[in-house]
């Protein structure tokens, strides 16, 4: 774990409080799996201690050449994954609008037919022998990231008798502190399934859903190669330590 962002003093402020009305509630019975998996007692609120303010760092040196290229990272030499070729790019920011440098972005998704390479996924759609479904990258100094993949398919899932997930890519983000950790999903502009999806609809605020919908960006699209979708991710901001009580030993 190297690459410690040498030109920036590390920040040590507490993260801004999460807005519980913005995130989906733990118990959201329209998404049936939450019913037995949602804590029922109130969480104990805790202003961040050093255990939440700190977090691991991931160095660019750990990345392989094809980690950010899901079209090729599981494919046989000379072959590529089947499906609409796309680039997904954007910035990881925090709530203050600052780019988050060195953030680990891990993604996973179904193939173009809507099938996951997972032993528990029995959907009829065929597996693509050249598509694994995982990718990762680390943001640059300004918080930018990009990866190449194929557009995943929509797929049915056993929540209701005829429920389909919109096309989506799962994102896991590691910012600078363990309390900034976030998992979410990216949806595609114009997909009519978004507004029917019980998982999307666990989010109470339409503006929060809009924030998970990536836009087609023709300017970033590579002619005769791949369309581009822009997806920015916002992590919790953090307080300046200027007037904070200093932690013991600082």
């Amino acid at each position, binding site marked *: 774990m190297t690459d410690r962002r040498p030109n920036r003093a590390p*920040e040590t402020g507490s993260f801004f409080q999460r807005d519980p009305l913005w995130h989906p509630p733990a118990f959201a019975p329209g998404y049936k799996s939450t019913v037995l998996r949602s804590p029922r007692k109130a969480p104990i609120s805790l202003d961040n201690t050093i255990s939440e303010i700190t977090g691991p760092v991931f160095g660019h040196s750990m990345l392989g050449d094809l980690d950010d290229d899901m079209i090729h990272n599981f494919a046989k030499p000379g072959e590529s994954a089947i499906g609409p070729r796309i680039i997904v790019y954007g910035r990881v920011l925090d709530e203050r609008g600052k780019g988050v440098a060195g953030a680990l972005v891990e993604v996973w998704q179904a193939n173009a037919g809507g099938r996951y390479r997972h032993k528990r996924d029995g959907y009829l759609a065929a597996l693509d022998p050249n598509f694994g479904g995982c990718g990762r990258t680390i943001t640059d100094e300004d918080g930018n990231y990009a990866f190449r993949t194929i557009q995943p398919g929509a797929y049915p899932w056993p929540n209701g008798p005829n429920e389909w997930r919109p096309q989506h890519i799962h994102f896991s983000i590691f910012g600078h502190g363990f309390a900034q950790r976030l998992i979410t999903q990216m949806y595609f502009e114009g997909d009519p399934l978004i507004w029917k999806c019980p998982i999307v609809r666990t989010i109470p605020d339409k503006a929060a859903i809009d924030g998970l919908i990536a836009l087609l960006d023709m300017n970033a699209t590579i002619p005769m190669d791949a369309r581009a979708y822009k997806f920015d991710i916002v992590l919790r901001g953090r307080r300046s330590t200027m007037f904070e009580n200093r932690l013991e030993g600082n």
Partner: protein
Amino acid sequence: MTQSLSHLKESASQTAGPYVHIGLTPNFADIKGVYPADLGTAMVDEKTKGERITVTGRIFDGSGTPIRDALVEIWQADAAGLYNSPSETRGSADLHFTGWGRAPTDMETGYYRFETIKPGRVPFRDGRLMAPHVTFWIAARGINLALSTRMYFGDEEKANAEDPVLARIEHRNRVPSLIATREGSTFTFDIYLQGDKETVFFDI
């Protein structure tokens, strides 16, 4: 018109879903050859300072069934009570200890497992020492926003009794839900999502 704070809103969380292992532990999910190893599987090496321990347990849903598709991450200080993080300003942590681990729950038994060391004590915001603890983060299908909790050590009775975070818990009969039991070098920390034994979760 007043000025605007211009703060952005955090991206809304969405469940990690049933296939989280494809993305975060692909080798465990049998997707080989993309990454050399799954991240977070090795926290220690032969030179790591501190007492070697195993931390293991299961996560139970509201019906008492162990969850077999979860992903657990932990974060902890080294044996001297320092975090291996750029935001650690009190000193330099043990370079042979990452402090961070990631493990899936076993697809058959539901057990997660970490090979780690017992952490030292770190200070609370006001300088009082907290008892040794491990921060837990749990993602799974049916969990809309990953859950945060802490594991404390059953053999640290005195430190636990003066821990300022444990002291914050109003219902004292819930405190034992955060304390792992020791047997040899293994600490067992079971997590209950609901019911009489529901684990205390933190809004951090």
